[in-house]
């Protein structure tokens, strides 16, 4: 009944309280009853209970402690400000809100006409906004599916499926962008619709040998499996379609009277989709970020977060509830144990520390060795595959396909084996459990994304030749007359293979395992049990696919459409697999930290995608035989070219912005602004600390005074 409980439990009271500061007051049991009455009559307590409920609506929710006689019931001048808050934001029951509303409406008569109109118009405006929001929310894709997953498995797994939905929408938007600005004008002008035509400017001042490009295209009557092979590898008839870069060999499109600068459009659309992805991801991740900048605590690991926000109120299934109880218990016990381990770690001796650090350095060297092994095997596989496919004749479908898909196979194997090795190694490194998980995840992310980088690097090493034979065009024109299409084909193969692997794993590993566990009651099988739904593995898988899509869209403009369809199908595959063949993870996953983690890794993938794209656009000479950038040295060169066509005033301004005379002062100003905000944040932190200490002091003063009052009362 009182907030004190037994006398000895008060923290901060007594010389050995947890605060460590010696107090000279000893709590006495005789006071246990009296202070409680006083506390409940304090103005702060009562006002906190009612929370500015306004005049006439203030029923004490705790029951009948104390009379309500003290409240004024007449119209008050602050009724106007209180009414500005929407009715439903008051923490009252509906009947009480109704009374409050009637009271406010009576109050309106005392206001001037202007205020009346202002209030009614703001009300109707808010209503209109609300209706729009409501109708928009019904258009959300997969709303019902995700809601049912949430009910059965909790918000952690639901966040994975929301993430998948986000990627479907992102890819769809990127596809619309590329289609609208790149593919559509090309198709329109090539087929002469709407009286349009295209201009093919003859290439200037380059050797004619660079401009020879004869894709095999449609060879007439061929075997069916040639079509299949072409479909799977992007060569043959697929190479000449709008799927790949080589199709877009126009320099300008003339749509009736408008001259559409096609190369510039291609480049700007590439920048636009990268910027769109960046902005959207940052917008989604901002909400997880805000609070952690002011306070030092790790908000995701805080006990309050786990206890007060621990239970998912949307769980409807009794089994899921049982699992949730168990996982919550497990999580709390693990965290408490981790705290004990941390205290133990702090007590390590120097000798132990040396031993552990040398062990860690040794294990990290092994990790680096594993990584180099992966990279080297990917490099060799790519080189081998490219050499073989360039010298091949369509001899044998299987070996040809195998050779073409060799880099994808090696990458998938590396992505599978390396994380297993990492999770074994990390056990020896003796970190705290939470840090172990973070570090393993970081290493897996790095492996997956770096593998793509190594693939691209090995492709470029093929396209660039070491000797002088390609001096004429800057790239290996004999083997790769249209090297962008070749890179596009590799990305296409990676995407298709990734999709096939996900389907194959679900079909050939999850379902048989589920059938085995359900129908065979042999002990070891039952002990193995169903596969857990590992959220981080699944997420890394789709982020890997998304990075490929970002890099590949420049070389293959219709790739986002394939990615959209791929993620669409994967949603249903994963949903069915989750419901029938998987069990929920033993270690609980929190929705907020998952969301944050997904978006951070996605951002890393996007930033890593900038690098190969930047190098291709700005550094490597564009192919002279195909594509919109034939007449430029590099793809980027179209931008300075266009600027030269602007009026001189604008040219001067743009040149000024790009020069050092502008960049250095700009950088200095940005640094100054940053320092100002850092100083401001530091000052706020200090103020927060001081206010906290003051609050503690005030509370002690209050309790001290109350005790004095009750003592004084006793004496009289």
């Amino acid at each position, binding site marked *: 009944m009182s907030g004190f*409980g037994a006398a000895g439990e*008060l923290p901060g009271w007594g010389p050995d309280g947890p605060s460590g500061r010696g107090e000279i007051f000893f709590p006495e049991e005789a006071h246990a009853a009296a202070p409680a009455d006083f506390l409940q009559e304090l103005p702060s307590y009562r006002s906190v209970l009612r929370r500015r409920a306004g005049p006439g609506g203030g029923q004490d929710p705790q029951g009948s402690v104390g009379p309500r006689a003290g409240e004024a019931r007449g119209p008050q001048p602050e009724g106007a400000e209180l009414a500005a808050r929407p009715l439903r934001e008051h*923490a009252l029951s509906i009947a009480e809100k109704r009374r409050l509303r009637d009271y406010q409406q009576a109050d309106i008569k005392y206001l001037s006409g202007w205020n009346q109109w202002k209030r009614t118009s703001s009300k109707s405006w808010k209503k209109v906004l609300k209706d729009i929001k409501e109708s928009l929310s019904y258009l959300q894709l997969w709303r019902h599916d995700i809601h049912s997953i949430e009910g059965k498995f909790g*918000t952690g797994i639901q966040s994975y499926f929301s993430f998948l939905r986000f990627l479907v929408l992102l890819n769809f938007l990127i596809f619309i962008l590329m289609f609208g600005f790149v593919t559509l004008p090309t198709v329109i002008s090539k087929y002469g619709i709407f009286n349009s035509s295209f201009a093919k400017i003859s290439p200037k001042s380059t050797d004619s040998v660079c401009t020879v490009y004869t894709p095999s295209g449609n060879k007439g009557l061929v075997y069916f499996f040639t079509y299949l092979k072409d479909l799977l590898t992007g060569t043959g008839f697929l190479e000449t379609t709008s799927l790949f870069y080589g199709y877009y060999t126009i320099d300008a499109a003339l749509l009736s009277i408008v001259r559409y600068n096609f190369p510039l459009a291609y480049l700007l659309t590439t920048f636009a989709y990268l910027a769109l992805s960046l902005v959207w991801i940052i917008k989604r991740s901002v909400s997880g970020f805000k*609070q952690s900048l002011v306070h030092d605590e790790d908000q995701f690991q805080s006990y309050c977060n786990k206890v007060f*926000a621990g*239970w998912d*109120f949307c769980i409807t299934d009794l089994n899921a509830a049982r699992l949730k109880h168990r996982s919550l218990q497990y999580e709390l016990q693990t965290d408490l144990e981790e705290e004990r381990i941390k205290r133990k770690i702090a007590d390590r001796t120097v000798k132990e520390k040396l031993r552990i650090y040398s062990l860690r350095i040794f294990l990290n060297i092994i990790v680096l060795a594993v990584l180099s092994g992966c990279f080297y095997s990917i490099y060799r596989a790519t080189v081998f595959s490219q050499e073989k496919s360039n010298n091949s004749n369509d001899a044998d479908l299987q070996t040809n396909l195998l050779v073409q898909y060799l880099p994808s196979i090696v990458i998938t194997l590396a992505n599978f084996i390396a994380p297993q090795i990492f999770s074994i190694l990390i056990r020896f490194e003796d970190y705290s459990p939470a840090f172990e998980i973070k570090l393993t995840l970081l290493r897996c992310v790095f492996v997956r994304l770096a593998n793509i980088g190594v693939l691209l690097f090995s492709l470029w090493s093929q396209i660039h030749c070491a000797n002088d034979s390609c001096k004429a065009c800057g790239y290996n024109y004999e083997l790769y007359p249209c090297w962008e299409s070749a890179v596009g084909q590799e990305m296409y193969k990676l995407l298709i293979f990734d999709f096939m692997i996900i389907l194959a794993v679900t079909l050939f590993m999850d379902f048989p395992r589920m059938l085995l566990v359900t129908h065979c009651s042999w002990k070891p099988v039952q002990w193995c049990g169903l596969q857990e739904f590992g959220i981080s593995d699944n997420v890394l898988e789709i982020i890997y696919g998304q990075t490929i899509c970002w890099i590949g869209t420049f070389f293959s403009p219709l790739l986002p459409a394939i990615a959209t369809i791929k993620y669409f199908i994967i949603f249903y595959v994963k949903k069915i697999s989750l419901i029938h063949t998987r069990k929920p993870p033993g270690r609980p996953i929190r929705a907020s930290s998952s969301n944050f983690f997904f978006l951070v890794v996605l951002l890393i993938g996007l930033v890593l995608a900038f690098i190969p794209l930047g190098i291709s656009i700005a550094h490597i000479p564009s192919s002279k035989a195909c594509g919109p950038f034939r007449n430029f040295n590099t793809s980027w060169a179209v931008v300075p070219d266009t600027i030269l066509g602007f009026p001189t005033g604008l040219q001067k301004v743009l040149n000024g912005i790009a020069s050092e005379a502008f960049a250095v002062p700009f950088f200095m100003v940005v640094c100054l602004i940053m320092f100002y905000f850092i100083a401001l944040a530091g000052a706020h932190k200090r103020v927060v600390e001081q206010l906290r200490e003051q609050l*503690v002091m005030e509370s002690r003063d209050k309790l001290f005074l109350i005790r004095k009052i009750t003592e004084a009362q006793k004496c009289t």
Partner: protein
Amino acid sequence: MAAAVTCEAEAAPGGMGGAGSLLPREALREYQELTFLSKQEILLAYKRFSELLPKEQRENACSLRVPKSRILTLPELRANPFQHRICRVFSTSEEGDDSMSFEDFLDMLSVFSDSATSDIKSHYAFRIFDFDDDGTLDRKDLEKLVNCLTGQGEEASLSNAEMEQLIQNILEESDIDKDGTINLSEFQHVVSRSPDFASSFKIVL
């Protein structure tokens, strides 16, 4: 001054909905204004609420109270360890039997809906977690809260030492004025910094 519109008014069929949705338009509009629920959600709530009543009483579902045992059969509540506290907090029944009327039910759904402000959610979360209804979360309340989370049964609860350590950590993080209890402002402060609260404190029919 109480110009309240109750459901006993003309029972015109309201908005969309199948058979039995006899919620009058006026009441629907009023509930939309007084709660965070949308029109469809209110109608769905009405449908589910009237299904809890025996057939012959479904006509005036608005004015009846459903006993607690029937409320707890809802799938959204039956798996919830806080089911009894929820019924206690939202019930406005004078007899103290925790039965809920339709308006109590709407109140509950409104607080747990997606569009409710975090202020409202944290206010009601505080009341739900306050097991002894004394206006503060003291050690006993926190102990009962943790036991609700980890489940019933002997092997499901934490040991005494672990419970002590856990409650100590919670108080360290949230008890700003160091009086050994968490009052409403401290609770709202710590919950506003908790990133999971908005997504977990949610019930959607």
